[in-house]
Each structure stands twice: as structure tokens, then as C-alpha cells.
């Protein structure tokens, strides 16, 4: 917010020459609209991490970073405008934080040779780097999430959930529909019954879905929600006295703002995650010192340490590490988007690296390759404590059912390749 926003679109219009020597990270954020509650902390975390790099280290590899923020309000048309306005600024990687905009940008970024990183969202089959050359979705995707949830249910039921009834309450959109094929395959494999309950966007009205849950009495409820839908669902679940420990949300349904409105009723609610929670990491001392204390924090500066702030920071961290890797591979400090793509494809997140960055045990370790743009899909579970008002990890990052997921990824990416005449890479 407070960083210098140049007259970006004007320069884009005039097709001005090469950008100045800085590393541009566009942030297609949404601080307005029905999904702003999740969009604000993510955008703050994303911007603050780059501010920290600039203030503390003088950028990445000696080149300053610049975050261009563009408001999409989760709207696809605004997303296109933002993409076109920022792409000629030397933008290195796009992170739209919206499934709709992701689907739109997959072909566009590939044609423009700019990478896109969709951290735990977007098109799951983009994990297949053979087909999706410019899209990355490590460290985990929705199908890992679906499988991780089922694995967790297996874990707490001593490996037998046959005959159990599991309901999926999902946002009736591409995002919410994404886990259904995986859950159906897993239901057949493990013999549980799957009940699908769609909630229309934005999700303020869920009385009928929760009435159905009252009638059908599922043993577990999974939720794929975002924005206001999460708060309403958790409130409704509390109202019908559904046991909260049997209610598991995807990682986008596991922020503080989702559980706070239900108060004590939300105690015990669980959510999946692919990164650690809380602010008990050395990096927060630096953020406090270099970003918050100097008044350079993005937005209102009140989101530091929240789950989605952490996730935005994690997204920024992976992007920054990708840029570092690109600088190393190509031996230049002022990298291009094409070099950035190579960097993201060669990214290797080790425990030592994360500890050196001040984020020990923050996320899973993974190595990206030409074929695998999606990491290893390790998924953990966090639980909400309403009295302490904190999330805590109750199940560590564990691997998911890759046999089922990989078969689905192969099928879906093959269909995309056939529709768009894409020849597989990495041969």
C-alpha cells in the first residue's frame, strides 16, 4: 500500500521501454467484496515479506523488489484488467488467489511466458508440469486436501471408515467442485458414503444445507468454503449443535475471522493446512523490527501472525526463493519472467533453508521438477481453541493418497492437453 505505485498502466499504454532494475511481484489482491476477509490478510502478508526483504537485505540478490497491488474484488473481468496492466512492468510471477482468475490466466501466462504460482488453489492438474509449463501449485493442491481429510478420518477411526457418512459442504463454483472427483474415488476405495451439499456464492444463505445435515446425520462434514460462507457455515453448525471436532474445513476455511464470529460455539473446529500456524517464528521479530515498527506494514497492519497472513507470507517466500534460484541458475541479478519460471521449476525447499529464513518447520520440504509442479502434497490438520483464540497443529504434515490423485491428474491434464493441442514437455 505505502510502497511507491508508479503510473503503471500509463507506461503500459505507451509501451515504455524495459522496466527499471527491480524485481516486480504483482499482487492481484482483493480488499473489497464478499471475499475481502480472506483477501486482506493474504495481501498484507505478501506485501510485508517483500518489504522485509527490501528493508533488511536490500532486496533479493542485491536487486530491490517492488510489489504492484491491483484490486480485483475477486472479479474475473477486473482480474484480466489487472493482468494486462501489470504484465508489461516486468512482472515475474502471478498469484491471483482466485480459482476463476487462475483458469483465465493459465493460457494467457503460458502465451506471454510469465509463470504463475497458485499456492494451494487453482487448477489441481496444473501439478503436471508436462502439460502446464508455466503454472505451479506446490506445496499442496485441493485433491491432496481431499485425500488428507480422508486420511485424517482414517487415522482417528483406526483405519476403517466404511459405512460412515461424510458430507461435503462446498462453494458452488469451480473452486468448490474441485475435490468432488477425488472424494468420489476415495469413497469407492474406502467404502464411505459421500453426501454433496452445494452452497451458492457468496454463501450467506445455508439454512437448507444444514437442515439436510440435521436430517441425514453425517458422521463428518468437510467444507470447501471461502469468504463469508465459512463464517455462516460454522455458525450454522454451532446452531444445530453439530460436534465441531467432526467438522473439517479446507485450508481456505481455516482463518481466525472464520471462527471468531461463532464464539465458543466454534471450539474444536478443525481445518486442513499445508503450512504452520501462529507467530512463534524468528522471522516475526524481523517483521516487527523492519516492517511494523517503521510503519511500512501493508494495509492496517493488524493482521500480522494470522493464518492467512502467514499464507501470504509463505507465498511471497516461495516466490522470493524462486527468484533467488533463477538468479543462481542464470547468473544475473535482474531476472526476466522466463528466468523466473526456470527458478520456480528448480525450487528446492529444504528444512535448512526454511530455518535460515527464520521459518523453521513452517512448511513441508519439497523439490520441484519439470514433471512435478505440485510438490509432495503433505497435509496437516489444525484445530481451533476458542478460549485461547489460537489454532494448533493436531496432526503433522502427512502424505496423501498419491495413487488416486495422480491418476486423476493424468486424466484431467491429458484432457486439457488434447483440448488445447499441447505436446508434453520434459522428454
Amino acid at each position, binding site marked *: *500500500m505505502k510502497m*511507491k*505505485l*508508479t*503510473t*503503471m*498502466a*500509463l507506461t*503500459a*499504454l505507451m*509501451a515504455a521501454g524495459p522496466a527499471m532494475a527491480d524485481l516486480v511481484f504483482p499482487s492481484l*489482491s482483493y*480488499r*473489497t467484496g464478499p471475499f*475481502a476477509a480472506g483477501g*486482506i490478510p493474504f495481501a498484507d502478508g505478501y506485501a510485508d515479506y517483500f518489504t522485509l526483504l527490501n528493508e533488511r537485505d536490500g532486496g533479493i540478490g542485491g536487486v530491490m523488489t517492488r510489489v504492484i*497491488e*491491483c*484490486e480485483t*474484488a*475477486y*472479479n*474475473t*473481468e*477486473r482480474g*484480466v*484488467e489487472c493482468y*494486462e*496492466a501489470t*504484465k*508489461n512492468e516486468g512482472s515475474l510471477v502471478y498469484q491471483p488467489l482466485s*480459482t*476463476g482468475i487462475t*483458469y*483465465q490466466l*493459465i*493460457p*494467457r501466462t*503460458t*502465451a506471454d511466458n510469465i509463470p504463475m504460482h497458485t499456492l494451494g488453489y487453482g*487448477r*489441481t492438474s496444473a501439478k503436471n508440469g508436462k502439460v502446464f509449463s508455466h503454472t505451479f501449485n506446490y506445496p499442496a493442491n485441493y485433491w491432496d486436501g481431499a485425500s488428507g481429510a480422508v486420511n485424517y478420518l482414517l487415522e482417528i477411526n483406526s483405519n476403517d471408515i466404511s459405512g460412515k457418512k461424510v458430507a461435503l459442504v462446498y462453494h*458452488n*463454483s*469451480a*473452486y468448490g*467442485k*474441485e475435490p*468432488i*472427483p477425488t472424494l468420489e474415488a476415495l469413497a469407492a476405495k474406502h467404502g464411505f458414503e459421500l453426501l454433496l451439499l*452445494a452452497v*451458492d*456464492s457468496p454463501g450467506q444463505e445455508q439454512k437448507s444445507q444444514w437442515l439436510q445435515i440435521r436430517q441425514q446425520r453425517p458422521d463428518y462434514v468437510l467444507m470447501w468454503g471461502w469468504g463469508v460462507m465459512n463464517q455462516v457455515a460454522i455458525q450454522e453448525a454451532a446452531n444445530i449443535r453439530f460436534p465441531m471436532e467432526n467438522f473439517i474445513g479446507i485450508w481456505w476455511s481455516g482463518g481466525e475471522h472464520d471462527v471468531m464470529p461463532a464464539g465458543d460455539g466454534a471450539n474444536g473446529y478443525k481445518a486442513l493446512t499445508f503450512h504452520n500456524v501462529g507467530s512463534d517464528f524468528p522471522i516475526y521479530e524481523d517483521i516487527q523490527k523492519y516492517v511494523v515498527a517503521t510503519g511500512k506494514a501493508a*494495509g492496517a497492519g493488524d493482521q500480522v501472525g494470522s493464518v492467512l497472513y502467514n499464507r501470504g507470507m509463505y507465498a511471497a517466500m516461495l516466490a522470493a526463493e524462486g527468484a533467488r534460484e533463477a538468479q543462481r541458475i542464470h547468473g544475473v541479478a535482474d531476472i526476466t519472467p522466463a528466468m523466473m519460471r526456470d527458478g520456480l521449476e528448480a525450487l528446492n525447499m529444504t528444512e535448512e533453508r526454511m530455518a535460515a529464513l527464520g521459518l523453521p518447520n513452517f512448511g513441508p520440504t519439497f523439490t520441484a521438477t519439470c514433471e512435478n509442479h505440485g510438490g509432495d502434497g503433505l497435509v496437516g490438520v489444525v484445530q481451533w481453541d476458542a478460549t485461547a483464540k489460537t489454532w494448533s497443529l493436531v496432526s503433522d504434515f502427512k502424505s496423501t493418497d498419491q495413487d488416486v490423485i495422480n491418476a*486423476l491428474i493424468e486424466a*484431467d491434464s491429458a*484432457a486439457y492437453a488434447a*483440448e*488445447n*493441442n499441447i505436446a508434453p514437455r520434459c522428454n
Partner: protein
Amino acid sequence: MFYREAGDFKTSYVADNQTFPIAFDRWRYYAVLAVAFLVVPFLVNDYWVNAILVPFLIYSIAAIGLNILTGYCGQVSLGTGGFMAVGAYACYKLMTAFPDVNIIIHIILSGGITAMVGTLFGLPSLRIKGFYLAVATLAAQFFLVWMFNKVSWFYNYSASGQISAPERTVMGVAVTGPNVEPWAMYMICLVFCFACAVIARNLTRGTLGRTWMAIRDMDIAAEIIGVNPLKAKLTAFAISSFFVGISGALFFAVYLGAIEVGEVFGIQKSFIVLFMIIIGGLGSIFGSFAGAALLVVLPVFLKLLGVDLLGWPTDIVAHFQLVIVGLLIILFLILEPHGMAQLWRVAKEKLRLWPFPH
């Protein structure tokens, strides 16, 4: 001074009844067309086409369609988003089922399919009017969006329910898909927009348009003088939906490339097109263009002004945008219910007398 009909003699009824009877108007019209077809395609870049020109042209077609129904025939519709979705999904199904057929034919056929659906939902208009009809069309909006979300046949059983446009060419030039050149995208929308505007303008000047306007002004009186309300209302629904369907097909295939029905063709889409014709001017083809231009350019302009020049936070600018659009609608409803088209008409009247107003 130069904007007047003095000395511009007409010797035939055809000449007297042409769209632009004043010579200056006519030349201005030709000049606009020449610039749009011959100059703009050579100047545009990705940003101009994607952020301003293509959405403007596509929204203009939708606004012309809705204007026929609401502005000319007086039937209020809140189903525009749903009908655009019909056009988009029809185009997707046709594109994937018959990949060898030219995309232009698919887009026109999508318009035809939407016209049929629109006629179906227009049937209640024979019995109900005003607010009640608005609610009936609102039902169409929700039903159509629900159907495209629910029935997986419409999105070829893809896992996510997203539809994306494969690459299609016109005379060897790609017009859909990721590798489309900005000028090609612009040209296909321009050609459709031009054709739709000419057809709409001439329809509204002819018998059909007059029966629509008779129904709009007083349906009982119209029926007494021999206007068939069944025919007038259903043709208005069909032709309006045809244009809206074309705009939906272009919106999906050319502009966005990948869509999700609930997000793109929701109730907001119906409202924004309705705002366009209210601000632009009900019952005016020019008004459809003016309204579309204002509502497409205004957010981009405010963003450039607020974020890029003044350096304001992006969320403040986004909030301001809502305030300003809302304020504009209220102001137009109070001060100039006939919209920007009426302002233009008044300006022309003044110009004809200028510089000697008495």
C-alpha cells in the same frame, strides 16, 4: 453554423428517412466507422483491447439487446446475465462439438439458441407486466445459472465446471484462445457490434419497432388499434435475447476465454447491463453505446486516477468506484431520466441553432 439542415435537400422518401438525415451527422458517422475499422486496429495493444475496447463492444451488444426489450418494448428484464450465459454455453457446446465449423457461425447460432430460450421465458409477459414480469425474468436468471452449474453436460463433465474456449480461427487468424492478437480480438467484436447496431437501429425504425413502442406506451390502446401483443412481445424477447446471446458468446469465447457461470453471469451482470441502458438512455441505440462506454471506462479511469496517479490504497479506490456509480445512477434518474442519449439530443438541438439562438 455548419450543423444544420438548411440547403440539404432531399428528393426521395428514402433519402428523407435515412438514419442520419443531416449531412454533418452522416459524415461524422462515416468518420467514426472509418476510425474504428481502419485506424484503431493498427494502434491497439493488449491492455487497450482487454481492459477497454473489447468489454465496451461486448457490453454495447448486450445493452442494445436489453434496450430493445426494456427501452423499446417496455418489458423490464432482470435476466440478462442468464441469457448471456445461454449464449456462452451454447457457443462452448457448439465449439467443442463441431470444431471444424467457423466460429462466426457458432456465435450466430448461439444467438439463435438464446433467442429460443428468451422467447420461452417471454411467454409469461403476455399475462404479467411491470414488477411481476421483472420477478419472472429474475427467476429465469437464477434458474439458468443454477442449471449451467448443475447439469454437467453443459460443461462437458469437466471436474471443476469451468468452461474454456479452445483456439478457433477466422480466415486463418486466431480469434479465440490464448494466442489471439489484440487487433483480431477487437475486429471480431467490432464486426459483430456494428452488424448488431445496424440491424437493431433499422428494426426499431420499421414496423416491428413501432409495434414495440406502441406496446410500451400503452398496451391496451395498441391492442385496440390492431397491434398484436403476442407477436410484439415475443418478437421483442426473441430479438433482444438474440443480441444478448451473441454478446454472451463473445464474452466467453473472445474476451474471457474461461468462465464460471455463477461468477461471471450472476445477477450483477443483469444489473450492470440494466444500469448501462438507464444511464445511457432507454429506447436509444446511441444510449446503449454511451452507457456501456461509461460503465466500462469509469472503473478503469478511476483506477488510473486514484491508484496510479494519486497513489491511494487500492481498496479505497474500489470503494469510491461503487459510490460514484451509485451516485451517477441516482443523479441520472433525478435529473435526466432519459439518460445520456437525451443530453446528446439536447446538445444537438442547441448546436443546430448555434451561434444565433433566436
